[in-house]
Protein backbone atom coordinates (compact mmCIF):
# COMPACT_ATOMS: atom_id res chain seq x y z
CA UNK A 1 0.00 0.00 0.00
CA UNK A 2 1.30 3.39 -0.99
CA UNK A 3 0.33 6.46 1.01
CA UNK A 4 0.46 9.90 -0.58
CA UNK A 5 0.78 12.94 1.72
CA UNK A 6 0.48 16.31 -0.03
CA UNK A 7 -1.46 19.52 0.73
CA UNK A 8 -2.18 20.07 -2.98
CA UNK A 9 -5.52 18.63 -4.12
CA UNK A 10 -4.24 18.22 -7.69
CA UNK A 11 -1.59 15.83 -6.41
CA UNK A 12 -3.90 13.98 -4.04
CA UNK A 13 -6.24 13.22 -6.93
CA UNK A 14 -3.81 12.41 -9.73
CA UNK A 15 -1.16 10.36 -7.95
CA UNK A 16 -3.38 7.65 -6.37
CA UNK A 17 -5.05 7.26 -9.78
CA UNK A 18 -1.72 6.54 -11.42
CA UNK A 19 -0.69 4.26 -8.59
CA UNK A 20 -3.88 2.20 -8.73
CA UNK A 21 -3.66 1.88 -12.49
CA UNK A 22 -0.13 0.60 -11.94
CA UNK A 23 -1.34 -2.06 -9.56
CA UNK A 24 -0.81 -0.51 -6.16
CA UNK A 25 -3.22 0.16 -3.34
CA UNK A 26 -3.15 3.87 -2.71
CA UNK A 27 -4.42 6.31 -0.12
CA UNK A 28 -4.02 10.09 0.18
CA UNK A 29 -3.70 12.48 3.15
CA UNK A 30 -3.53 16.27 3.25
CA UNK A 31 -1.20 16.53 6.25
CA UNK A 32 1.39 14.59 8.25
CA UNK A 33 -0.85 14.76 11.31
CA UNK A 34 -3.80 13.27 9.39
CA UNK A 35 -1.56 10.38 8.31
CA UNK A 36 -0.24 9.72 11.81
CA UNK A 37 -3.76 9.71 13.24
CA UNK A 38 -4.93 7.17 10.67
CA UNK A 39 -4.45 3.43 10.59
CA UNK A 40 -2.42 3.67 7.38
CA UNK A 41 0.89 4.02 9.22
CA UNK A 42 1.34 0.33 9.90
CA UNK A 43 -0.13 -0.68 6.54
CA UNK A 44 2.02 1.60 4.36
CA UNK A 45 4.87 -0.07 2.59
CA UNK A 46 5.89 3.09 0.70
CA UNK A 47 5.38 6.76 1.42
CA UNK A 48 5.14 9.50 -1.21
CA UNK A 49 5.74 12.58 0.90
CA UNK A 50 5.51 16.30 0.07
CA UNK A 51 8.36 18.32 1.61
CA UNK A 52 6.37 21.49 2.33
CA UNK A 53 3.40 20.44 4.44
CA UNK A 54 1.35 22.66 6.76
CA UNK A 55 2.16 21.86 10.39
CA UNK A 56 4.70 19.03 10.56
CA UNK A 57 6.88 19.10 7.44
CA UNK A 58 7.65 16.09 5.28
CA UNK A 59 11.25 15.64 6.50
CA UNK A 60 10.04 16.00 10.10
CA UNK A 61 7.49 13.24 9.59
CA UNK A 62 10.19 11.05 8.06
CA UNK A 63 12.36 11.67 11.12
CA UNK A 64 9.48 11.08 13.49
CA UNK A 65 8.72 7.70 11.97
CA UNK A 66 12.37 6.70 12.20
CA UNK A 67 12.59 7.66 15.84
CA UNK A 68 9.44 5.61 16.50
CA UNK A 69 11.09 2.65 14.87
CA UNK A 70 8.42 2.81 12.18
CA UNK A 71 10.58 3.91 9.26
CA UNK A 72 8.90 3.53 5.87
CA UNK A 73 10.69 3.71 2.49
CA UNK A 74 10.00 7.33 1.47
CA UNK A 75 9.90 9.15 -1.87
CA UNK A 76 9.95 12.89 -1.32
CA UNK A 77 8.21 15.17 -3.78
CA UNK A 78 8.48 18.96 -3.75
CA UNK A 79 7.54 22.14 -5.60
CA UNK A 80 10.51 24.03 -4.12
CA UNK A 81 13.37 24.64 -6.52
CA UNK A 82 16.24 24.18 -4.07
CA UNK A 83 18.66 21.72 -5.73
CA UNK A 84 20.54 21.02 -2.50
CA UNK A 85 17.40 19.44 -1.09
CA UNK A 86 17.78 16.15 -2.92
CA UNK A 87 21.24 15.13 -1.64
CA UNK A 88 20.33 16.19 1.86
CA UNK A 89 17.17 14.09 2.01
CA UNK A 90 18.78 11.08 0.34
CA UNK A 91 21.59 11.30 2.89
CA UNK A 92 18.97 11.01 5.61
CA UNK A 93 17.60 7.82 4.16
CA UNK A 94 15.10 8.86 1.49
CA UNK A 95 14.73 6.55 -1.48
CA UNK A 96 14.38 9.48 -3.87
CA UNK A 97 13.46 13.17 -4.12
CA UNK A 98 11.48 14.27 -7.14
CA UNK A 99 10.89 17.87 -8.20
CA UNK A 100 7.41 18.79 -9.39
CA UNK A 101 6.33 18.44 -12.08
CA UNK A 102 7.83 14.96 -12.45
CA UNK A 103 6.93 12.40 -15.07
CA UNK A 104 4.89 9.30 -14.23
CA UNK A 105 7.82 7.19 -15.35
CA UNK A 106 10.13 8.84 -12.86
CA UNK A 107 7.68 8.17 -10.07
CA UNK A 108 7.14 4.53 -10.97
CA UNK A 109 10.90 3.96 -11.21
CA UNK A 110 11.31 5.39 -7.74
CA UNK A 111 8.53 3.16 -6.47
CA UNK A 112 10.27 0.12 -7.90
CA UNK A 113 13.44 1.10 -6.04
CA UNK A 114 11.46 1.58 -2.85
CA UNK A 115 9.81 -1.81 -3.14
CA UNK A 116 13.18 -3.46 -3.77
CA UNK A 117 14.51 -1.87 -0.61
CA UNK A 118 11.74 -3.49 1.31
Amino acid at each position, binding site marked *: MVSVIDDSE*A*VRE*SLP*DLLRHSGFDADAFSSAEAFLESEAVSKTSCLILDVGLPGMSGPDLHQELLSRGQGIPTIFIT*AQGDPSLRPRLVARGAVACLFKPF*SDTALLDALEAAVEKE
Partner: protein
Amino acid sequence: MRNARRDPDPAIGERGLKLIIDTIPALAWSARPDGSAEFFNQHYLDFVGFSAEQARDWGWTAALHPDDAGGLAESWRRIMASGAPGEGEVRLRRYDGEYRWFLYRANPLRDDQGAIVKWYGVNTDIEDRKRAEQELRRSEAFLAQGQRLTHTGSLWWDVSTGEVIWSEGNYRIMDLPTTITPTVDLVMQRVHPEDLPIVRAMLERSTREGATFDLEHRLLMPGGSVKHVRVVLHNVSQSAGQPEFVGAVQDVTAARTAEEALNRAGSELARVARMTTLNALTASIAHEINQPLSGIITNAGTCLRMLDAAVPDIQGARETARRTIRDGNRASEVIARLRALYTKRAFTLESLDLNEAIREVIALSQTDLQRNHIVLQSELAPDLPAVTGDRIQLQQVTLNLLRNASEAMADVQDRQRLMRIRTEREVGDRVRVTVRDAGSGLPLESVGSMFDAFYTTKSGGMGIGLFVCRSIVERHHGRLWAEPNDGPGATFSFSIPRRPADASDAASVLMTA
Protein backbone atom coordinates in the same frame (compact mmCIF):
# COMPACT_ATOMS: atom_id res chain seq x y z
CA MET B 1 70.61 127.31 -6.92
CA ARG B 2 68.23 129.24 -4.88
CA ASN B 3 68.93 132.33 -2.77
CA ALA B 4 69.38 131.75 0.95
CA ARG B 5 66.40 133.84 1.56
CA ARG B 6 63.63 134.75 -0.77
CA ASP B 7 62.67 138.40 -1.09
CA PRO B 8 58.99 138.69 -0.28
CA ASP B 9 56.80 139.06 -3.35
CA PRO B 10 55.97 142.79 -3.41
CA ALA B 11 52.35 141.95 -4.25
CA ILE B 12 51.94 139.88 -1.10
CA GLY B 13 54.29 141.49 1.33
CA GLU B 14 55.72 140.11 4.52
CA ARG B 15 52.39 139.97 6.28
CA GLY B 16 50.65 138.30 3.36
CA LEU B 17 53.27 135.58 3.36
CA LYS B 18 52.80 134.97 7.06
CA LEU B 19 49.07 134.72 6.48
CA ILE B 20 49.59 132.13 3.78
CA ILE B 21 51.91 130.07 5.95
CA ASP B 22 49.56 130.15 8.90
CA THR B 23 46.46 129.31 6.84
CA ILE B 24 47.55 126.45 4.57
CA PRO B 25 45.93 123.28 5.80
CA ALA B 26 49.10 121.66 7.03
CA LEU B 27 51.50 121.77 9.95
CA ALA B 28 54.51 123.65 8.60
CA TRP B 29 57.91 124.06 10.23
CA SER B 30 61.51 124.86 9.62
CA ALA B 31 64.69 123.59 11.26
CA ARG B 32 68.34 124.52 11.47
CA PRO B 33 70.96 122.33 9.86
CA ASP B 34 71.60 120.64 13.21
CA GLY B 35 68.01 119.51 13.34
CA SER B 36 66.73 121.88 16.02
CA ALA B 37 63.48 123.63 15.22
CA GLU B 38 63.36 127.30 14.37
CA PHE B 39 59.80 127.98 13.27
CA PHE B 40 56.33 126.46 13.52
CA ASN B 41 53.25 127.76 11.78
CA GLN B 42 50.14 128.57 13.77
CA HIS B 43 48.39 125.31 12.84
CA TYR B 44 51.29 123.37 14.28
CA LEU B 45 51.34 125.33 17.53
CA ASP B 46 47.56 125.15 17.84
CA PHE B 47 47.60 121.37 17.22
CA VAL B 48 50.23 120.50 19.81
CA GLY B 49 49.05 123.22 22.16
CA PHE B 50 52.53 124.71 22.63
CA SER B 51 53.70 128.27 22.42
CA ALA B 52 56.47 129.14 19.97
CA GLU B 53 58.95 129.28 22.86
CA GLN B 54 57.93 125.86 24.16
CA ALA B 55 58.19 124.23 20.76
CA ARG B 56 61.41 125.86 19.59
CA ASP B 57 64.75 123.99 19.42
CA TRP B 58 63.91 120.53 20.78
CA GLY B 59 60.77 121.34 22.71
CA TRP B 60 58.58 119.96 19.91
CA THR B 61 59.78 116.41 20.62
CA ALA B 62 57.60 116.39 23.74
CA ALA B 63 54.60 115.94 21.42
CA LEU B 64 55.96 112.77 19.85
CA HIS B 65 54.36 109.44 20.74
CA PRO B 66 56.78 107.68 23.10
CA ASP B 67 56.82 104.58 20.90
CA ASP B 68 57.67 106.62 17.82
CA ALA B 69 60.18 109.02 19.34
CA GLY B 70 63.19 106.78 18.94
CA GLY B 71 62.31 105.88 15.39
CA LEU B 72 61.77 109.47 14.43
CA ALA B 73 65.10 110.57 15.87
CA GLU B 74 66.79 107.92 13.80
CA SER B 75 64.90 108.88 10.61
CA TRP B 76 65.52 112.60 11.10
CA ARG B 77 69.25 111.99 11.56
CA ARG B 78 69.34 109.89 8.44
CA ILE B 79 67.51 112.49 6.35
CA MET B 80 69.82 115.24 7.54
CA ALA B 81 72.83 113.13 6.84
CA SER B 82 71.61 112.30 3.34
CA GLY B 83 70.92 115.93 2.59
CA ALA B 84 68.05 114.78 0.35
CA PRO B 85 64.34 115.28 0.77
CA GLY B 86 62.82 112.66 3.02
CA GLU B 87 59.58 111.58 4.62
CA GLY B 88 58.15 109.35 7.25
CA GLU B 89 55.20 108.70 9.52
CA VAL B 90 54.92 109.59 13.15
CA ARG B 91 52.28 110.10 15.84
CA LEU B 92 51.90 113.57 17.33
CA ARG B 93 49.98 114.41 20.44
CA ARG B 94 47.15 116.84 20.00
CA TYR B 95 46.49 119.57 22.58
CA ASP B 96 43.75 117.38 24.12
CA GLY B 97 46.13 114.47 24.61
CA GLU B 98 44.98 112.37 21.63
CA TYR B 99 47.65 111.02 19.31
CA ARG B 100 47.18 111.22 15.57
CA TRP B 101 49.26 109.83 12.68
CA PHE B 102 51.09 112.34 10.52
CA LEU B 103 53.06 112.08 7.33
CA TYR B 104 56.05 114.45 7.58
CA ARG B 105 58.03 115.65 4.58
CA ALA B 106 61.28 117.57 4.82
CA ASN B 107 63.11 119.55 2.11
CA PRO B 108 66.61 121.03 2.46
CA LEU B 109 67.42 124.64 1.44
CA ARG B 110 70.99 125.15 0.18
CA ASP B 111 73.04 128.31 -0.22
CA ASP B 112 75.04 129.26 -3.27
CA GLN B 113 77.86 127.06 -2.12
CA GLY B 114 75.53 124.05 -1.77
CA ALA B 115 75.62 123.89 1.96
CA ILE B 116 72.34 123.24 3.73
CA VAL B 117 71.22 126.29 5.61
CA LYS B 118 67.68 125.23 6.55
CA TRP B 119 65.23 122.36 6.49
CA TYR B 120 61.60 123.08 5.62
CA GLY B 121 58.85 120.62 6.33
CA VAL B 122 55.14 119.94 6.19
CA ASN B 123 53.21 117.45 8.32
CA THR B 124 49.89 116.11 7.01
CA ASP B 125 47.24 114.43 9.17
CA ILE B 126 46.84 110.85 7.93
CA GLU B 127 45.02 109.47 10.95
CA ASP B 128 41.86 108.64 8.97
CA ARG B 129 43.88 107.00 6.24
CA LYS B 130 45.74 104.98 8.85
CA ARG B 131 42.50 103.85 10.44
CA ALA B 132 41.12 102.89 7.06
CA GLU B 133 44.29 100.88 6.41
CA GLN B 134 43.87 99.02 9.68
CA GLU B 135 40.21 98.31 8.98
CA LEU B 136 41.15 97.02 5.57
CA ARG B 137 43.83 94.77 7.00
CA ARG B 138 41.43 93.41 9.56
CA SER B 139 38.71 92.97 7.00
CA GLU B 140 41.10 91.15 4.72
CA ALA B 141 42.12 88.87 7.57
CA PHE B 142 38.46 88.10 8.27
CA LEU B 143 37.82 87.37 4.64
CA ALA B 144 40.89 85.17 4.31
CA GLN B 145 39.98 83.27 7.44
CA GLY B 146 36.36 82.98 6.36
CA GLN B 147 37.38 81.67 2.98
CA ARG B 148 39.69 79.17 4.59
CA LEU B 149 36.93 77.90 6.85
CA THR B 150 34.31 77.63 4.11
CA HIS B 151 36.62 76.45 1.35
CA THR B 152 35.73 79.42 -0.79
CA GLY B 153 37.76 81.75 -2.89
CA SER B 154 36.92 84.98 -4.62
CA LEU B 155 37.97 86.29 -7.95
CA TRP B 156 37.77 89.30 -10.21
CA TRP B 157 37.87 89.11 -13.98
CA ASP B 158 38.01 91.95 -16.47
CA VAL B 159 36.98 90.26 -19.70
CA SER B 160 38.22 92.96 -22.06
CA THR B 161 41.76 92.96 -20.69
CA GLY B 162 41.75 89.34 -19.61
CA GLU B 163 43.07 90.29 -16.19
CA VAL B 164 42.18 87.87 -13.42
CA ILE B 165 42.76 88.32 -9.70
CA TRP B 166 42.36 85.52 -7.18
CA SER B 167 42.05 85.56 -3.43
CA GLU B 168 44.22 83.22 -1.41
CA GLY B 169 41.25 80.91 -1.05
CA ASN B 170 41.02 80.55 -4.81
CA TYR B 171 44.69 79.61 -5.10
CA ARG B 172 44.05 76.99 -2.48
CA ILE B 173 41.12 75.53 -4.34
CA MET B 174 43.01 75.49 -7.61
CA ASP B 175 46.06 74.10 -5.79
CA LEU B 176 48.44 76.66 -7.23
CA PRO B 177 51.09 78.84 -5.54
CA THR B 178 50.12 82.46 -4.95
CA THR B 179 53.08 83.57 -7.02
CA ILE B 180 51.37 82.46 -10.21
CA THR B 181 49.39 85.00 -12.20
CA PRO B 182 45.94 83.57 -12.81
CA THR B 183 44.48 83.47 -16.31
CA VAL B 184 41.31 82.09 -17.84
CA ASP B 185 43.37 79.47 -19.70
CA LEU B 186 44.87 78.30 -16.43
CA VAL B 187 41.39 77.72 -15.09
CA MET B 188 40.29 75.83 -18.19
CA GLN B 189 43.27 73.52 -17.80
CA ARG B 190 41.89 72.46 -14.45
CA VAL B 191 38.27 71.98 -15.55
CA HIS B 192 37.34 68.29 -15.79
CA PRO B 193 37.36 67.25 -19.47
CA GLU B 194 33.84 65.89 -19.25
CA ASP B 195 32.55 69.22 -17.95
CA LEU B 196 34.61 71.33 -20.32
CA PRO B 197 31.94 71.64 -23.02
CA ILE B 198 29.27 72.95 -20.75
CA VAL B 199 31.64 75.23 -18.83
CA ARG B 200 32.89 76.70 -22.10
CA ALA B 201 29.40 77.10 -23.46
CA MET B 202 28.10 78.88 -20.38
CA LEU B 203 31.22 81.02 -20.06
CA GLU B 204 30.89 82.06 -23.65
CA ARG B 205 27.32 83.05 -23.02
CA SER B 206 28.25 85.04 -19.94
CA THR B 207 31.02 86.95 -21.65
CA ARG B 208 28.84 87.64 -24.63
CA GLU B 209 25.73 88.75 -22.75
CA GLY B 210 27.19 89.73 -19.41
CA ALA B 211 24.82 87.25 -17.82
CA THR B 212 25.40 85.79 -14.37
CA PHE B 213 27.39 82.56 -14.42
CA ASP B 214 26.22 79.99 -11.91
CA LEU B 215 27.44 76.46 -12.37
CA GLU B 216 28.56 73.48 -10.38
CA HIS B 217 31.23 71.47 -12.15
CA ARG B 218 34.29 69.35 -11.54
CA LEU B 219 37.98 70.09 -11.55
CA LEU B 220 40.52 67.45 -12.47
CA MET B 221 43.59 68.08 -10.28
CA PRO B 222 47.13 67.16 -11.42
CA GLY B 223 47.27 64.10 -9.18
CA GLY B 224 44.11 62.76 -10.82
CA SER B 225 41.75 63.59 -7.98
CA VAL B 226 38.44 65.28 -8.69
CA LYS B 227 37.02 68.35 -6.95
CA HIS B 228 33.48 69.61 -7.19
CA VAL B 229 33.20 73.38 -7.27
CA ARG B 230 30.32 75.81 -7.40
CA VAL B 231 31.17 78.95 -9.31
CA VAL B 232 29.09 82.13 -9.31
CA LEU B 233 30.10 85.21 -11.29
CA HIS B 234 28.24 88.52 -11.30
CA ASN B 235 28.76 91.22 -13.87
CA VAL B 236 29.51 94.50 -12.08
CA SER B 237 30.56 96.47 -15.13
CA GLN B 238 28.96 99.82 -15.87
CA SER B 239 29.52 99.57 -19.59
CA ALA B 240 27.53 97.19 -21.71
CA GLY B 241 29.53 94.81 -23.87
CA GLN B 242 32.55 94.94 -21.57
CA PRO B 243 31.69 92.74 -18.65
CA GLU B 244 33.66 92.74 -15.45
CA PHE B 245 32.97 89.79 -13.21
CA VAL B 246 33.22 89.51 -9.47
CA GLY B 247 32.75 86.01 -8.26
CA ALA B 248 33.06 83.31 -5.70
CA VAL B 249 34.16 79.71 -5.96
CA GLN B 250 33.28 77.14 -3.36
CA ASP B 251 34.76 73.70 -2.99
CA VAL B 252 31.76 71.46 -2.43
CA THR B 253 33.55 68.16 -2.91
CA ALA B 254 32.93 66.87 0.59
CA ALA B 255 29.21 67.54 0.42
CA ARG B 256 28.93 66.12 -3.08
CA THR B 257 30.85 62.92 -2.38
CA ALA B 258 28.89 62.33 0.81
CA GLU B 259 25.69 62.83 -1.12
CA GLU B 260 26.77 60.53 -3.90
CA ALA B 261 27.74 57.87 -1.39
CA LEU B 262 24.36 58.26 0.22
CA ASN B 263 22.60 58.02 -3.11
CA ARG B 264 24.60 54.98 -4.07
CA ALA B 265 23.81 53.34 -0.77
CA GLY B 266 20.17 54.24 -1.23
CA SER B 267 20.10 52.89 -4.77
CA GLU B 268 21.95 49.79 -3.73
CA LEU B 269 19.51 49.28 -0.90
CA ALA B 270 16.56 49.73 -3.19
CA ARG B 271 18.12 47.37 -5.69
CA VAL B 272 18.78 44.71 -3.09
CA ALA B 273 15.30 45.14 -1.70
CA ARG B 274 13.88 44.74 -5.17
CA MET B 275 16.05 41.68 -5.83
CA THR B 276 15.06 40.14 -2.53
CA THR B 277 11.43 40.74 -3.29
CA LEU B 278 11.93 39.46 -6.79
CA ASN B 279 13.64 36.32 -5.54
CA ALA B 280 10.90 35.71 -3.05
CA LEU B 281 8.33 36.48 -5.70
CA THR B 282 9.92 34.12 -8.20
CA ALA B 283 10.10 31.34 -5.67
CA SER B 284 6.51 31.96 -4.76
CA ILE B 285 5.39 31.92 -8.40
CA ALA B 286 7.31 28.74 -9.09
CA HIS B 287 5.84 27.06 -6.08
CA GLU B 288 2.28 28.11 -6.82
CA ILE B 289 2.38 27.03 -10.45
CA ASN B 290 4.23 23.80 -9.95
CA GLN B 291 1.36 22.30 -7.98
CA PRO B 292 -1.29 22.33 -10.71
CA LEU B 293 1.42 21.58 -13.31
CA SER B 294 2.36 18.49 -11.41
CA GLY B 295 -1.25 17.37 -11.40
CA ILE B 296 -1.54 18.03 -15.15
CA ILE B 297 1.51 15.98 -16.03
CA THR B 298 0.64 13.12 -13.74
CA ASN B 299 -2.91 13.03 -15.08
CA ALA B 300 -1.78 13.17 -18.70
CA GLY B 301 0.72 10.39 -18.03
CA THR B 302 -1.93 8.30 -16.39
CA CYS B 303 -4.31 9.04 -19.27
CA LEU B 304 -1.83 7.64 -21.82
CA ARG B 305 -1.22 4.50 -19.75
CA MET B 306 -4.93 3.93 -19.47
CA LEU B 307 -5.41 4.26 -23.22
CA ASP B 308 -2.38 2.06 -23.95
CA ALA B 309 -3.55 -0.76 -21.66
CA ALA B 310 -4.53 -4.07 -23.15
CA VAL B 311 -8.08 -3.16 -22.30
CA PRO B 312 -8.20 0.65 -22.56
CA ASP B 313 -9.75 2.26 -19.52
CA ILE B 314 -11.78 4.89 -21.38
CA GLN B 315 -13.68 6.02 -18.31
CA GLY B 316 -10.49 6.47 -16.36
CA ALA B 317 -8.87 8.32 -19.25
CA ARG B 318 -11.85 10.64 -19.50
CA GLU B 319 -11.53 11.40 -15.75
CA THR B 320 -7.84 12.18 -16.04
CA ALA B 321 -8.52 14.48 -18.99
CA ARG B 322 -11.19 16.29 -16.99
CA ARG B 323 -8.79 16.77 -14.10
CA THR B 324 -6.12 18.00 -16.50
CA ILE B 325 -8.41 20.72 -17.75
CA ARG B 326 -9.35 21.68 -14.22
CA ASP B 327 -5.71 21.90 -13.13
CA GLY B 328 -4.90 23.91 -16.21
CA ASN B 329 -7.54 26.43 -15.20
CA ARG B 330 -6.15 26.51 -11.70
CA ALA B 331 -2.71 27.36 -13.02
CA SER B 332 -4.28 30.16 -15.02
CA GLU B 333 -5.96 31.53 -11.89
CA VAL B 334 -2.65 31.46 -10.05
CA ILE B 335 -1.08 33.60 -12.73
CA ALA B 336 -3.95 36.07 -12.68
CA ARG B 337 -3.75 36.35 -8.90
CA LEU B 338 -0.01 36.90 -9.01
CA ARG B 339 -0.31 39.55 -11.67
CA ALA B 340 -2.90 41.41 -9.59
CA LEU B 341 -0.62 41.14 -6.57
CA TYR B 342 2.35 42.47 -8.46
CA THR B 343 0.83 45.49 -10.19
CA LYS B 344 -1.83 46.59 -7.77
CA ARG B 345 -0.71 48.95 -5.03
CA ALA B 346 -3.25 50.11 -2.52
CA PHE B 347 -5.04 52.79 -4.47
CA THR B 348 -5.65 55.41 -1.78
CA LEU B 349 -7.76 58.33 -2.85
CA GLU B 350 -7.48 61.72 -1.27
CA SER B 351 -8.10 65.34 -2.11
CA LEU B 352 -4.80 66.50 -3.55
CA ASP B 353 -3.02 69.80 -4.07
CA LEU B 354 -1.00 68.90 -7.17
CA ASN B 355 1.28 71.93 -6.78
CA GLU B 356 2.36 70.76 -3.36
CA ALA B 357 2.87 67.20 -4.52
CA ILE B 358 4.94 68.43 -7.45
CA ARG B 359 7.02 70.68 -5.22
CA GLU B 360 7.92 67.62 -3.17
CA VAL B 361 8.97 65.78 -6.29
CA ILE B 362 11.09 68.77 -7.35
CA ALA B 363 12.72 68.88 -3.93
CA LEU B 364 13.55 65.18 -4.17
CA SER B 365 15.05 65.70 -7.62
CA GLN B 366 17.23 68.71 -6.74
CA THR B 367 20.49 66.84 -6.44
CA ASP B 368 19.95 64.92 -9.67
CA LEU B 369 19.03 68.11 -11.51
CA GLN B 370 22.03 69.98 -10.18
CA ARG B 371 24.42 67.18 -10.98
CA ASN B 372 23.17 67.12 -14.55
CA HIS B 373 23.35 70.92 -14.82
CA ILE B 374 19.60 71.16 -15.42
CA VAL B 375 17.95 74.54 -15.01
CA LEU B 376 14.44 74.02 -13.76
CA GLN B 377 11.67 76.55 -14.17
CA SER B 378 8.50 75.81 -12.32
CA GLU B 379 5.31 77.64 -13.21
CA LEU B 380 2.72 76.30 -10.82
CA ALA B 381 -0.60 78.03 -11.21
CA PRO B 382 -1.56 79.71 -7.95
CA ASP B 383 -5.27 79.10 -8.41
CA LEU B 384 -5.01 75.43 -9.29
CA PRO B 385 -8.10 73.52 -8.15
CA ALA B 386 -7.73 70.37 -6.08
CA VAL B 387 -7.97 66.92 -7.66
CA THR B 388 -8.93 63.58 -6.19
CA GLY B 389 -6.29 60.94 -6.61
CA ASP B 390 -3.52 58.74 -5.27
CA ARG B 391 -0.79 61.14 -4.24
CA ILE B 392 2.10 58.67 -4.38
CA GLN B 393 1.15 57.37 -7.79
CA LEU B 394 0.73 60.82 -9.34
CA GLN B 395 4.07 61.80 -7.82
CA GLN B 396 5.62 58.72 -9.40
CA VAL B 397 4.28 59.78 -12.77
CA THR B 398 5.69 63.28 -12.34
CA LEU B 399 9.03 61.94 -11.17
CA ASN B 400 9.19 59.67 -14.18
CA LEU B 401 8.50 62.54 -16.57
CA LEU B 402 11.17 64.65 -14.85
CA ARG B 403 13.71 61.86 -15.16
CA ASN B 404 12.90 61.29 -18.80
CA ALA B 405 13.26 65.01 -19.52
CA SER B 406 16.58 65.08 -17.72
CA GLU B 407 17.84 62.09 -19.66
CA ALA B 408 16.70 63.59 -22.94
CA MET B 409 19.08 66.50 -22.29
CA ALA B 410 22.06 64.41 -21.24
CA ASP B 411 23.95 65.22 -24.41
CA VAL B 412 23.01 68.87 -24.77
CA GLN B 413 26.10 71.12 -24.77
CA ASP B 414 25.40 74.23 -26.77
CA ARG B 415 22.39 75.55 -24.90
CA GLN B 416 20.94 75.70 -21.44
CA ARG B 417 19.48 72.44 -20.19
CA LEU B 418 16.16 74.05 -19.54
CA MET B 419 13.31 72.08 -18.02
CA ARG B 420 9.95 73.61 -17.37
CA ILE B 421 7.22 72.20 -15.17
CA ARG B 422 3.87 73.84 -15.35
CA THR B 423 0.48 73.30 -13.79
CA GLU B 424 -2.62 74.99 -15.10
CA ARG B 425 -6.34 74.68 -15.46
CA GLU B 426 -7.58 72.96 -18.55
CA VAL B 427 -10.84 73.44 -20.35
CA GLY B 428 -13.54 71.12 -19.11
CA ASP B 429 -12.86 71.27 -15.38
CA ARG B 430 -9.54 69.55 -15.68
CA VAL B 431 -6.03 70.16 -14.40
CA ARG B 432 -2.98 69.81 -16.63
CA VAL B 433 0.64 69.14 -15.74
CA THR B 434 3.30 69.62 -18.42
CA VAL B 435 7.00 68.81 -18.35
CA ARG B 436 8.96 70.45 -21.12
CA ASP B 437 12.58 69.72 -21.95
CA ALA B 438 15.17 71.14 -24.38
CA GLY B 439 16.64 67.81 -25.33
CA SER B 440 16.88 65.65 -28.38
CA GLY B 441 13.15 65.55 -29.03
CA LEU B 442 10.83 62.65 -29.80
CA PRO B 443 12.42 59.93 -31.92
CA LEU B 444 10.24 59.46 -35.00
CA GLU B 445 10.22 55.69 -34.96
CA SER B 446 8.96 55.36 -31.41
CA VAL B 447 6.26 58.00 -31.22
CA GLY B 448 3.59 55.35 -31.55
CA SER B 449 5.19 52.74 -29.35
CA MET B 450 6.77 54.74 -26.55
CA PHE B 451 3.83 54.10 -24.26
CA ASP B 452 3.91 50.34 -24.88
CA ALA B 453 4.47 47.90 -22.06
CA PHE B 454 8.04 46.91 -22.75
CA TYR B 455 9.33 49.99 -24.56
CA THR B 456 12.57 51.24 -23.11
CA THR B 457 15.52 53.25 -24.30
CA LYS B 458 17.67 52.67 -21.25
CA SER B 459 18.88 49.62 -19.39
CA GLY B 460 18.27 49.16 -15.71
CA GLY B 461 16.30 52.36 -15.25
CA MET B 462 14.70 52.91 -11.91
CA GLY B 463 11.63 54.52 -13.39
CA ILE B 464 8.25 52.95 -13.69
CA GLY B 465 8.02 53.45 -17.43
CA LEU B 466 5.57 55.38 -19.60
CA PHE B 467 3.30 52.37 -19.89
CA VAL B 468 2.64 52.30 -16.16
CA CYS B 469 2.44 56.11 -16.06
CA ARG B 470 -0.29 56.06 -18.62
CA SER B 471 -2.25 53.39 -16.81
CA ILE B 472 -1.98 55.34 -13.56
CA VAL B 473 -3.23 58.50 -15.27
CA GLU B 474 -6.02 56.59 -16.96
CA ARG B 475 -7.06 55.12 -13.67
CA HIS B 476 -7.51 58.73 -12.57
CA HIS B 477 -9.79 59.25 -15.59
CA GLY B 478 -7.08 61.30 -17.23
CA ARG B 479 -4.85 61.12 -20.26
CA LEU B 480 -1.08 61.26 -20.83
CA TRP B 481 0.46 62.36 -24.11
CA ALA B 482 3.63 63.71 -25.69
CA GLU B 483 4.29 66.25 -28.39
CA PRO B 484 7.40 67.76 -29.94
CA ASN B 485 8.31 71.36 -29.08
CA ASP B 486 8.48 74.43 -31.23
CA GLY B 487 12.23 74.32 -30.93
CA PRO B 488 14.38 71.66 -29.35
CA GLY B 489 12.97 68.95 -27.13
CA ALA B 490 9.57 67.55 -26.28
CA THR B 491 6.74 68.18 -23.87
CA PHE B 492 4.95 65.48 -21.92
CA SER B 493 1.59 66.35 -20.44
CA PHE B 494 -1.07 64.69 -18.38
CA SER B 495 -4.46 66.03 -17.45
CA ILE B 496 -6.92 64.73 -14.90
CA PRO B 497 -10.34 65.91 -13.85
CA ARG B 498 -10.51 68.28 -10.95
CA ARG B 499 -12.21 67.26 -7.77
CA PRO B 500 -15.90 67.68 -8.36
CA ALA B 501 -18.15 69.39 -5.84
CA ASP B 502 -19.43 66.04 -4.59
CA ALA B 503 -16.27 64.12 -3.67
CA SER B 504 -17.93 60.84 -2.70
CA ASP B 505 -19.32 60.41 -6.22
CA ALA B 506 -15.87 60.87 -7.69
CA ALA B 507 -14.39 58.35 -5.31
CA SER B 508 -16.85 55.65 -6.22
CA VAL B 509 -16.43 56.36 -9.92
CA LEU B 510 -12.65 56.10 -9.65
CA MET B 511 -12.81 52.92 -7.60
CA THR B 512 -14.61 51.04 -10.28
CA ALA B 513 -12.06 52.03 -12.92
